[in-house]
């Protein structure tokens, strides 16, 4: 694993998390062929120096605009990258849609349940352990703006592995998608 992609829907705190993880070593760059910006930085993981990329926000992996196209393209190109899927804890269902799409592609993933404090304040309770059990990937509550849960998140990045979508459906008691 040589790269970490921070992915998530718009406004879930990807950049906040990025700035925390990459520290002051942030560089801005332009993706060729588009005007959409993404940020690149470096962080230490298990005594290794790895590149971390702040991917533009996307609702799903079916791109609807240029920024989303960039996000999907990056995921396509970085085959062996680790994906940190960031979900707004107060809007979990929406975020899981993207998370499951990424899992379906076979990417090793860690889920950051970000804005944990916001969810708590608005009385939303999320069972992170249960979610982890169902998804089969590490799920860590975080508050990126205050740096809470980030140590745990980084620690558990090492344990990230691709999950099996069939197993997830079994555990969640769901059926095959009827999407057309």
């Amino acid at each position, binding site marked *: 694993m040589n790269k970490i992609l921070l992915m998530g829907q718009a406004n879930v705190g990807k950049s906040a998390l990025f700035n925390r993880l990459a520290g002051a070593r942030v560089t801005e760059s332009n993706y060729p062929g588009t005007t959409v910006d993404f940020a690149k930085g470096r962080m230490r993981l298990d005594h290794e120096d790895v590149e971390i990329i702040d991917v533009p926000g*996307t609702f*799903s992996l*079916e791109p*609807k605009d240029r920024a989303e196209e960039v996000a999907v393209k990056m995921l396509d190109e970085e085959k062996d990258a680790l994906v940190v899927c960031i979900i707004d804890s*107060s809007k979990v*269902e*929406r975020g899981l*849609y993207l998370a499951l*799409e990424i899992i379906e592609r076979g990417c090793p993933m860690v889920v950051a349940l970000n804005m944990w404090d916001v969810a708590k304040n608005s009385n939303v309770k999320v069972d992170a352990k249960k979610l982890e059990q169902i998804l089969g990937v590490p799920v860590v509550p975080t508050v990126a703006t205050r740096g809470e849960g980030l140590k745990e998140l980084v620690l558990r990045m090492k344990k990230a592995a691709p999950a099996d979508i069939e197993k997830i459906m079994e555990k969640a008691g769901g059926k095959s998608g009827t999407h*057309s």
Partner: protein
Amino acid sequence: MEKKLSEMKYTEKGRIKEIDKSLRAQIAGMGIREGKEVEMMTKQPIKGPVVVNVDRANTSIGLGLADKIIVEVER
């Protein structure tokens, strides 16, 4: 009563009954699916987008898309 999402009034609530096949996958990532409860938050003038609340999240949808979503409205 059934109506298009685009026809809902401010603060009106309802349940999504039918989404046109062509845009189902497109808006599923926004948490908008059949069976979901929605509340109209804002309608923008000059054929602007509508803002609806789904699962505590405000989401704006273009009027063209909102035209293709059928909602069972609460009375």
